[in-house]
Each structure stands twice: as structure tokens, then as C-alpha cells.
């Protein structure tokens, strides 16, 4: 079996997901080639053929042209699987390639089980084992699911490719994340509020627990989107990545995008009314309780110590 790995490049850098693609192909026992819209000055560590297009010519984000380029490489390499990261780049590009090939797309693969690909459903409460019925398939990989134990090495054999630079979408550059606010990455103890707090007034009890533990408070995305907490408090793929000694998740279900930002915490305590909440998968302790009752009592008892 042969795979074509589509590496991701942003703001002049190759993203770490490229090593996950390589590891995935290795786990499948598949041959691979790689394609990258990037630069010759920053090559990925990879032992194999790298089809390289110049991002300064066609743009780091230019989906119709990236698609065109990848289709041309597919024509040459004849892979039976095209693999991308399940990221803002990958989930945007993958269906475009899949439709052009009339190929099945398998999104957000988390595991290879008995030769089949496994994907999550219903906020990771279920898993589906799926199979493409087409000869070629397009696959995206969940971030972190195929992180190799060691970074790959090697120098690719570069084959330069080109494609016209036009396209139907104009890309006018990046806007950096807002800075300012708290830097949660430095906190030793974080108590985070999720949608389970129910209303903005209840954020105070999370703050109080954080104070009682001499830590900072954080939040899941819905709490930030609802403007109950400052964006700098958001933990997750689109917020901050934190590694505290203690992370207390209050009313947070444990969506993959949240877990990605806090799963390296040393100790995780979850407070949730739902015994099956996916946060239980990574929590050291899951206290099945209504946070509105447990958090104030816990705070009071801590303050009395």
C-alpha cells in the first residue's frame, strides 16, 4: 500500500503534524511520499520523496490551487490513501481532494484497529470503525493521535512542482492571537469552568475555588464564546496549552479540543454530573456531582484548612 502525506506549513514553518503523518504511514506498514507547499529552506525530517511547491508563489492558504497541485502529485504517485492532519488546513482541503477523486473521506482518525480506521463520534462517547469502498481514500488524522515516540529523521529527496497561482479565494495574511490577560501556561494550579456552570454568575465560585487553591482560573471555549471569561483564559487547541500540577475541570465534558490543551497536566480532577463524560477518560479523579453544590463546599473546607 502507498500513501501520500500532505504536510502542513504555516507562517514559514512546517507544523509538527508532519511527523504524525509519517508515523501513521509506518503504523499502517505503508510506503509513502510527501507533498508540501512550503520552502526549500525548511525541509521536514523525512526519508522519502518530497514534492515541494513554493508557498511564496502560490500562497500558504490557497485551497483550489493546493488541491490542483496535490491531484497532479497523486497522478504521478498513484497512492491508495491521501493523508492530511485533521486541522484547519486539513479539514478544509481534504474534502476538495476527495470529491475530485470521488474518493471516500475518513475524518479525524484516532486509531488503527485490526487494519481498519477508527474515528470518534458524539464528543468521543462512541467510536466507529469505518472502511472506504473506493480504491483511493482521503484520511485526516486527529492531532496527537499518532505522535511518534521519537521525531523522524532523514533528508527528503526533493522534487519541485508548480501550479498556477490564481484561485478563487484571496488570502490576506494572519492575525496573531490577542496577547495580554493571564498567562495560564505558567500556572501550577488551574481551576477551569465549562458550560456546566450554567450562568455567568457561577463563574465566581470557580474563581473562589481557584483562589482557595492559590491557583488561576481557566475556561472552556463556550464560556469564552459567551463572553463570561476573557479569551486569555481559554484552554484548548484554539486557546492556551497548559501543564499545571493540578487541573480541576468543572462542568467540562472533555471534548478533544479541550483535552489537547490540558492533558499533560500532572493531576486532573473533574467535577461533572455526567458519569460518562469523556473528561473521565483522562481524569485521575472524576467526582460525579453538581458543581453548584460541590464547588462551594470544597472551597469552604479548603479555606478552613
Amino acid at each position, binding site marked *: 500500500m502507498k500513501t501520500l502525506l500532505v504536510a502542513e506549513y504555516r507562517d514559514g514553518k512546517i507544523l509538527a503534524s508532519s511527523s504524525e503523518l509519517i508515523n501513521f504511514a509506518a503504523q499502517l506498514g505503508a510506503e509513502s511520499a510527501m507533498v508540501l507547499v512550503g520552502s526549500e529552506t525548511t525541509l521536514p525530517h523525512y526519508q522519502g520523496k518530497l514534492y515541494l511547491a513554493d508557498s511564496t508563489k502560490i500562497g500558504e492558504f490557497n485551497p483550489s490551487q493546493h488541491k490542483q497541485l496535490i491531484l497532479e502529485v497523486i497522478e504521478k504517485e498513484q497512492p491508495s490513501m491521501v493523508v492530511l492532519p485533521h486541522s484547519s488546513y486539513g479539514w478544509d482541503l481534504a474534502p476538495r481532494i476527495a470529491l475530485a477523486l470521488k474518493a471516500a473521506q475518513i475524518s479525524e482518525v484516532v486509531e488503527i484497529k485490526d487494519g481498519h480506521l477508527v474515528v470518534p463520534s458524539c464528543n468521543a462517547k462512541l467510536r466507529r470503525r469505518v472502511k472506504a469502498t473506493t480504491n483511493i481514500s482521503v484520511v485526516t488524522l486527529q492531532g496527537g493521535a499518532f505522535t511518534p515516540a521519537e521525531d523522524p529523521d532523514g533528508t527528503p529527496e526533493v522534487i519541485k512542482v508548480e501550479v498556477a497561482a490564481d484561485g478563487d479565494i484571496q*488570502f490576506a495574511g494572519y492575525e496573531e492571537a*490577542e496577547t495580554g490577560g493571564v498567562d495560564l501556561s505558567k500556572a*501550577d494550579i488551574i481551576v477551569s469552568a465549562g458550560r456546566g456552570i450554567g450562568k455567568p454568575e457561577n463563574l465566581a465560585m470557580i474563581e473562589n475555588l481557584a483562589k482557595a487553591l492559590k491557583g488561576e482560573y481557566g475556561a472552556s471555549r463556550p464560556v469564552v464564546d459567551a463572553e463570561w471569561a476573557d479569551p486569555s483564559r481559554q484552554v484548548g487547541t484554539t486557546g492556551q496549552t497548559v501543564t499545571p500540577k493540578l487541573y480541576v475541570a468543572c462542568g467540562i465534558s472533555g471534548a478533544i479540543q479541550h483535552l489537547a490543551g490540558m492533558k499533560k497536566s500532572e493531576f486532573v480532577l473533574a467535577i461533572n454530573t455526567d458519569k460518562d463524560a469523556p473528561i473521565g477518560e483522562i481524569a485521575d479523579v472524576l467526582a460525579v456531582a453538581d458543581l453548584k453544590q460541590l464547588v462551594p463546599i470544597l472551597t469552604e473546607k479548603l479555606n478552613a484548612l
Partner: protein
Amino acid sequence: MKLLVCIKQVPDMESKFKVNAAGNWYEETDLAWRMNEYDEYAVEQAVQLKQQVGEADLTVLCIGSDRVKETMKKALAMGCDRGAHIADDASHLKDPYTIASLIAAYAKDKDFDLIFTGMQSQDRGSGQVGVLVAEMLGIPSLTTLVEFSYADGTINAKRELEGGIKAKVSCTTPALVTCQLGLNTPRYPTLPNIMKAKKKELISTPVDDLNPQPSLLEVLQVAPPEKKGGGLILEGDPADLADQLIQILKEKTTALA
């Protein structure tokens, strides 16, 4: 201006999910159903655009059994003008390619200027349908939007990337956009609007009229994830729980040192 917003009805994610008898999806009984969260942002953005341009006709489309009409009524109460229900009791077994083929078949000769979808559904989470529809129709698509503006046939938007970074993108209509959480603040339908929605057009079309394309994916098995174990689950009276938690924090962490 002609606008289309595509929505899906999904179970509340706090539900307890059981695998169905066929072993290919979850059991649909005993679940509370709601609008896919991402689609709420899509509906809101479409309604805001309609209000901005004044002259616009906004259709909400949903594929599924009669049960999904409840969710369509919410979209109508939020401000959509008419509902196009594609009646299909087996929509949950169709893959993103088939679902997209239905939407594209519906939209093909209707000259929509702009189509809105959520970036993914909460249950299946494939994140494919919006882009596939656009590709099938041959129009540009902008995905994962957290900011959107429209003027004179041009969309200026921001895509959300990882780590809080955004990409500034634009394209001209006709186009399709997929909406990310936080794009706007979805409105709650007011009582008068809920009443008005009851009188709005909601037409069901049998799915077979739209010539569904066969699925490209086969589901071999659906199961809950294997419990990795390890984690301790505590239940009981909150005061007792608090005492147990403090004990654990003392023994297992340096938090109280």
C-alpha cells in the same frame, strides 16, 4: 439575494448513547434532540445578513425524519423565511458524500448567492458536508469562520486556525461558508416569532426525488471507547465528596503543601 442555510438535528451530547441493534449507529430512542450547535451560528449569520441587505429570501434546509421539523421550526423562528425538508428516515446511515449530493441536487438550479453550514456536526463530526456541497456546485467555500462580513458581492472573513491565530480570507459570491463556534451570538427565538414561524412554508420532499448518490464509506462497527481505567470515580454526598477530594489532593498532589 437568495440565501440557504443547512442544518442538522443532533442529540444532546450529554445523553447516554447506546449502540443500535444493527451496530452501525446510536439508538435513536430516548434522546433529547436539538439543533447542531455549529448550525446555530450558521442560522444566526444568515439571518443577520438577510437583515443587513434587506431584500433577501432565506431558506433553511434539513435532511431527516419528520422529527427534524421541530428543529427547522426553531430556525424559522430565528428568522429564516421558508423550510425545505428532505424527508428521509435513513439519513443517519448516509455518509457525508451522500448527504452533500442531496443538498447539491436541491440547490443546483436555485441560484443561491450564499450558502451557510456549520463547520461540522456534533454527532458525526466529519466536517465534510459544507465543502463537498460547494465543490459539487463549483463555487468557492470558506471554512471555520469566526468573523464574517458581506458587501457588494464580496465576503471578507476570518478563518480560525490553531492556537488562536486567524487567517484573513475573502471571495466573491456565489459561495459557501462553514461556521465555527463563536462566530456570533445566536439569538433565542421570541414567543411572537415562534408563533409566526408556525405559519411559514415548510415543504417536505421525499429523499428519492433528489437522486441520492451511494455512500462511499462503510461502517463496520460502532462501540463506546474502551475504558483505559485508572481514573477513580467518586459519587455521593457533596460534603463527603469534598472531604475525600481534599484527602486525595493531600496525598497525590502538592497543591495543598
